């Protein structure tokens, strides 16, 4: 199925969870905040959150700023 991650189209297997997506991207959960369809996902919910076709995932981190 196709989802949008940070604005980029990605093909992921059916049934992929948010946790699975983060693992496949090699991202450390503690360093990021995740939104699915503009709703923030608590860290404890990652494994329960099954992604759906067309979902918009945003993965946000702290960067330098003033």
């Amino acid at each position, binding site marked *: 199925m196709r989802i949008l991650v940070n604005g980029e189209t990605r093909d992921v297997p059916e049934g992929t969870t948010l946790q699975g997506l983060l693992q496949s991207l*090699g991202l450390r959960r503690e360093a990021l905040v995740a939104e699915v369809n503009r709703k923030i996902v608590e860290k404890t919910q990652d494994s329960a959150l099954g992604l759906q076709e067309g979902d918009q995932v945003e*993965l*946000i*981190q*702290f960067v*330098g*700023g*003033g």
Partner: protein
Amino acid sequence: MAQTHQQLIQGDPWTINGKQFTSRLLVGTGKYTTNELMVDCLEASGCQIVTVALRRIPLGQKGEKSLLDYLDLKKYTLLPNTAGCFNTEEAVRVAHLARASGLSDFIKLEVLYDEQTLLPDPIATLEATKILVQEGYTVMTYTSDDPVLAQKLEQAGAHAVMPAGSPIGSGQGVLNPNNIRIILEKVKCPVLIDAGVGTASDTAFAMELGVQAVLMNTAIAHAKDPLRMAHAMRESTEAGRLAFHAGRIPKKLYAQASTPQKDF
């Protein structure tokens, strides 16, 4: 025994929403050539609050170090900003993301109007302040140097109002000290100069006006020698604060001899 410089600084803390700080210099983490240099500059500046921004993670960079890997969170309070937000909704969303990190409920609220001036949108800024205060954030609001707006922001519950000395990154110093003085008379919450500082004398000047603290990024990060400037900013912040309390002499038109004129 007379108090030392350090005792005078330590003995003059300030608070935001119940949290106490002794450093009156807040430093941004953007624009440094390397993260190592940033860490050294933060250390040299003596700051206790650092601003950070939130952005999308670049995909396909597995295992890359993030900003947080460089910041000792036991030492620094994170002040996430809403930089780059041009309306209330975006700013509130970024604040939610910042708090969801679990690392800070401080927010440097900035809602901008246009990209050329980076001046704040006063109406959206006020609106977002109200929302975030209600949601329990410690809200430090970036604003223009308008005394009326500063009062409205305080009434909306802002924990600090932070007028720009001059436009962000412009290095022009404090262009309208009279407005800052009026804000200081009218507003009881902490007032910080946020943006516009170019060099150490700008910082000292701002602190001499009586603001609680100064926030800067570009002035240090883009100095020819950022580390040296970080030291300079620390000292000028402290010097300005000490001078504010010490009380300057009035300016006079004519000379007044320092040395007795009689009894040669």
